[in-house]
Each structure stands twice: as C-alpha cells, then as structure tokens.
C-alpha cells in the first residue's frame, strides 16, 4: 500500500477537511502523518507529500524543508500553499507594521513578513488549486491525476443558461438582489469569473446562486501568462454580455474577495518562471 503524509503549514485546515471527505483513499493509501487526525512525531518516508497552508512562520519553513526530503512526490494543495493565500490580503505596509508590532511574542514561532507560497522555498511536482479543492480533486491527485476528466472552465460545469438579450448596466454587488434560478449570473449583474476559471470543481458556488470567485485560478489558457491576460479576458466577457462600465469591473476584480484568488498564479517564483500547466490539476 502506498503511503502519504499531509504537512499542515499556516492555513485554515479546510484542505484537510476536504481530504477527510474524500474517504475513498482509505482503501488505497496509508495515511502516516497528518497532525489533524494522526498522532505521529515527524514526517516519515512517503510516496506522496501533500502540503497545505502558506509559509507564515519560521517554524513552517523549518518543517517544510525537513519534510520534502522524505517524499518521492510533493504536491502543493490549496490557495495558501500556492500563493500564500488569504493572509496576504494583509501584505500591505500599514497592516504589516500593525501586526508585527502588536503580535510580537517571545516564546512562539516568529512571524515572517508575509505568507509565502511553498514553491518559494522547495520544488513542487504538482499543484492542486482550490479554496479548498473538492474531495473529488483530492482523490484525483492521489490516484491518477493524468486521467482526471474535467471541463476547461467552471462556466461549462455550471449549467446556467446565458441569455443574449439581457444586458445589465451595473454590477449588483455580491450581496444584493434575488437570484433567478437557471439563468447565468452575469446576465443578472453578478461579477462571476467562472468563464475563465479553471474547471474541475463542478461549479458548486454558481449552482448555489453565488458568483464564482475564481478560487481554482485561471484555466490552462492563462495559467502561464501574467494576470493581466486573465483580467483582459474577464473584462472582454463582461463587455460582450453586459453594459457595465469597464472601470466598475476592474474595481470589482481588484477588490479583496476576488484579488485573493485572481492573483494566485501571478506570483512567479524561482527565476520568475510561471507554473507549467502540466503541473496543475
């Protein structure tokens, strides 16, 4: 039986909970390290090491460097491991100064100035984006990533109908209005970015009536390009389907709720190389 471990860095444990929901691995894998559910001293030799969370403290960095030496294959899972995640909404001078001053503690791990992606420090073999990735995606990554079948974009998995003759003049915001079932959320004035967000999640959010916030990152077409290319594509969709002014779209895309996810692949690491699409599930 193959062995796998989960290294939890600074994050919310949502990725681990998603993994627990994917119970089918129990038959194929032995889980040898994952502090959330297994008591074990250290990461032993494993076939696959999943890493969740960002590198936020010096202890995270120490654990990361030790753990990857034990693994045949290293997989970064979730937005935090890929980009630093939600904690980086605080990667601004005013905020950084505040929390470094107010949260200085003598006996606990030291905070780094920002939450770093895992591949800023170690080589990663496979990336699994999502906040969190669904249980099905976890199973795919553990069993056979090459054979995983998914649509290219969330839009194709959503099932809502696009209407040609309904063009909203302004965005509704994320919390307003009455959502009509079965009709495309863009037609209803919601800033949904499912048209170019990576497929594979089966579109749970837009199906439930909430616009896609892009947590899976860009589709293969944009994943090796700068974030500007992805933004341009989203803006083009809204220019075609709505009469919403471009600056209104631009503001929405750069607001925290979306920026948190839309920039997750634009932070190139190492020699500033983009993550190759073959390595992203």
């Amino acid at each position, binding site marked *: 039986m193959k062995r796998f471990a989960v290294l939890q860095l600074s994050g919310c444990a949502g990725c681990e909970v998603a993994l627990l929901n994917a119970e089918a691995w129990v038959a194929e894998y032995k889980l040898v390290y994952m502090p959330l559910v297994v*008591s074990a001293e250290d990461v032993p030799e494993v076939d696959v090491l999943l890493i969740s969370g960002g590198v936020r403290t010096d202890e995270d960095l120490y654990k990361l460097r030790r753990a990857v030496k034990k693994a045949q294959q290293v997989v970064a899972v979730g937005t935090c491991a890929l980009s630093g995640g939600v904690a980086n909404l605080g990667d601004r001078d005013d905020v950084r100064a505040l929390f470094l001053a107010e949260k200085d503690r003598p006996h606990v791990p030291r905070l780094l100035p920002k939450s770093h992606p895992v591949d800023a420090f170690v080589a990663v073999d496979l990336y699994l984006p999502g906040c969190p990735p669904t249980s099905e995606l976890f199973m795919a990554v553990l069993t056979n990533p090459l054979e995983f079948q998914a649509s290219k974009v969330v839009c194709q998995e959503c099932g809502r109908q696009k209407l040609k003759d309904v063009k909203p003049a302004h965005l509704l915001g994320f919390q307003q209005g009455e959502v009509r079932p079965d009709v495309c959320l863009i037609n209803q004035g919601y800033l949904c970015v499912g048209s170019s967000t990576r497929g594979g999640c089966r579109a749970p959010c837009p199906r439930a009536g909430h616009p896609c916030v892009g947590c899976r990152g860009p589709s293969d077409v944009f994943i090796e390009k700068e974030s500007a290319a992805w933004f341009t594509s989203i803006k083009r969709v809204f220019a075609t389907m709505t009469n919403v002014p471009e600056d209104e779209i631009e503001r929405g895309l750069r607001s925290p709720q979306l920026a948190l996810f839309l920039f997750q692949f634009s932070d190139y690491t190492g020699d500033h190389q983009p993550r190759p699409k073959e390595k992203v599930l």
Partner: protein
Amino acid sequence: MTTLTFPLSRIEGHARVVIDTRGGIVQSAKFQATEFRGFEYLVKGAPAEQMPVIVPRICGVCSTAHHVASVKALEDAYGVTPPPLALTIRELLLLGQLLQNQATSLFIFTMPDRLGVDSIFDVDMTELDGDALAGVAARALQVRQAGTHLITLAGGQFIHPVKAVVGGVTGGISAEAASAMKAELADALPVACALFDTYWDYSVALSERLGTWGDDAPACYLTAVSGTKPNYYGDFLRLMGCEGGDVCAQFPARKFRAFLTVEEAEYSYAAQTSYKGNVLRANSLARANLVDSLETPCANEYLQRFHREFGQPAHAILLFDLARGIELVYAIERAIEILSESLDGAETRLPYEPRDGEGYGLVEAPRGPLIHHYRIENGLIAQAEFVIPTVHNVLAIERALRVAAERYITPERVNLELERAVGRVVRAFDPCIACATH
C-alpha cells in the same frame, strides 16, 4: 527548573503545551497557540459586503459558523431581518456543521485515546473488540459525511459556504433534495447511536482505569442556546454562575464586554477570556449543563442518562466528549425534522440598503458562542473583531492541564501517563487554533 513541552495532534491547528516544574512541583501549565494570520488587521479596508466570503477562511473546520456570524453582523448594521425560510435554512446549515464537527471530534480526534491507538485509520479494529469496533473508521466517516452533505445542501459549498447572504439566503431547498438528505440522515442515525454507545462504554472504562474523569472543579458556563429545541443560530448569551444551577446573566452580543474579559497572553497567539476573575467554559458541556431536556427522542434519552449519572451541572472535563455525542444525535434528529418542512418557498431574501455603522453577529458554533463585530465606514470595514469560542476555554484548558500535571508529576518521577493525559485534556475542549488566533 525543568520544562516539559508536549506537541499536540488530533486537534485543529498548531499548538503545544508547556509545563514548568521545580523539584517535582508544578510551577505552571501553559497552552500555547503557535500560528497567526492576522484577520482583524487584514480585513481593514475591505468592502463590508465581502466579509461573508473572506472570513470563513479563518477556519475550514468552523467556516459555516463564521459565514453565518458575518452575515448576521452585516444585517445588524444594516437593520434588516431575513424572512423565516432563510432563518430555517441557516439553522439547518449550522446543524450540518454541528453534526460534522461532533462526529469528527468524537470518532477521529478522541476515539483513538479510548482505544490506545494513534489514529482511527491506523489499525484493524476487529482485533481489538469484535463487533462493536468492526469497520469503525468507515462508519465514523459515513456519519461525518452526512454532516458534510447537509452543509453542502444548505450552504452551497461543503467548506467556506456561500448561500447565506445579507437579507436571507440565495435560494431554498427543493423537495427532492430535502427528501434525499432526510434518507441519508435516517441511515446515519442508528450508525451514530451505535458508535456513541461504544464510545460511552470505552469512556467509562477509561475513567475507571485512570481513576478520574479529569478536572472536576466548578466553573462558569457560557452558551448562546436555550430551550428544549436548542437553536444554534443564537440569540442571547447565557452565563451559568460558579455556584451552579441557574443562569446568572443573559445578554446580547453587543453587551459582551460588560461580562467577558478578553486578555492577550504574551506566550501565545491566542487570547483568553474570564468572567469576573473566574474560569469560564464554553462548548458541549456548557450546553448540556444549561439544557434540561431535548424534544428529540434519542438525544433526550442520552441527555437524561447524562444528567442522571453525572449531575447537572456536571464539571469533569472528559464529560465534554460525552456531551458532544448527545449533540451529534440531536443534530441528526433535528435536521430530519426541519427537512420534513417545506423549504422551497419563494421568499428567501429581502432587499436592504447598506449603511455605515456597527453590527454584531452571534451564533453558537460547535465550540461555543462566536461573535463577529464590525464597524463600517464609507462601506468599508474600519474595524473587525472576532470573539472566538476557543478563547473562552483557554483558562479552563490551562487549569485542567495543571490538575493533570500535578497528578502525574511527583518529586520522585514523571509518570509517562502525563503525555497521554495532556492530549486527552486538550482534546476534551476540542480547541480550534486557527479560529483562536485568526
């Protein structure tokens, strides 16, 4: 001075226990949260309406509670009351979280302590005790999965839900979907009861072996539920005083500072709460102590047995775990009741006008009362405050750790049982460190 440091596992997040001793006398027992992300700082300047999507990311285990508390805080600020159907769906969502969490805490986090193994996935349980433990991991995951599916149904997403919005929810639940969910819960109910019976028996055996149920000194108890059909949606906070028996204070979320003292600690990224200098406890035992009876049959049978055997209020810490099992059963039974109502009505959401001001949102999360407090200026978050259930329990955890340390550390030696005791003490409170430090 000798310092003993214990890393912790089978809890949410990163924490450790540090015990200082001198000449075999325990000097201090500290619970250190060792992670920090800074949500109160990083949401400053964010559009208020984006909070229900950003703040569930405080914690993937408790994301549902944060999602609902966030929406409630905004509704409080904007002065909007959601329609009844939306409130029912939100109650269902929180029951899904309660079910998922209590199943996880009981069977994945603390069952291994009863069985003397490192993980529920680790061993062939049939070797331990024939039928009662056959396929225990698969059965535990089945029960837990029902909670996950309930969250998905009522919240749109299984983690970081999206369906609660200011003024209501994005949509109802169709009769077909409700009926399929009911069937799954009905299947899970006997499985959950059987697992809980086994868990109860093993807990009794454990306490007999140890000669204790752990720290049983009186404490104050805090919860936001009441009545015989506790609604985890939360209305008022209630405090049961140290002298036991009755509720000694009842107050809305916006008055919490008059009753709860929240202080930072220099050795931990988590703060700690007290009530007039007294140790405070939240989570399952607080609710079991404050609720006299339940209107769902199986859960009530367990609760009455609990009161009979351990008294009301009960104080020993390993009883937190048993109280969790009662709630697991209640969550399933109550969700089945709600799913029998019509949930596909038209009115799921009311219009509202955003405005600046302050808002408080309270829910009873599995770990206790959770409060989100926002101050909104120009539509942006000027200040956010998250009052976290685990923080209410920090002093109680440290007191119980000290009791365990004094039991197992003597001038002659340190009993190796201490390491296991530290794990059991902390897990009894089911702390969530991602939330506590946020």
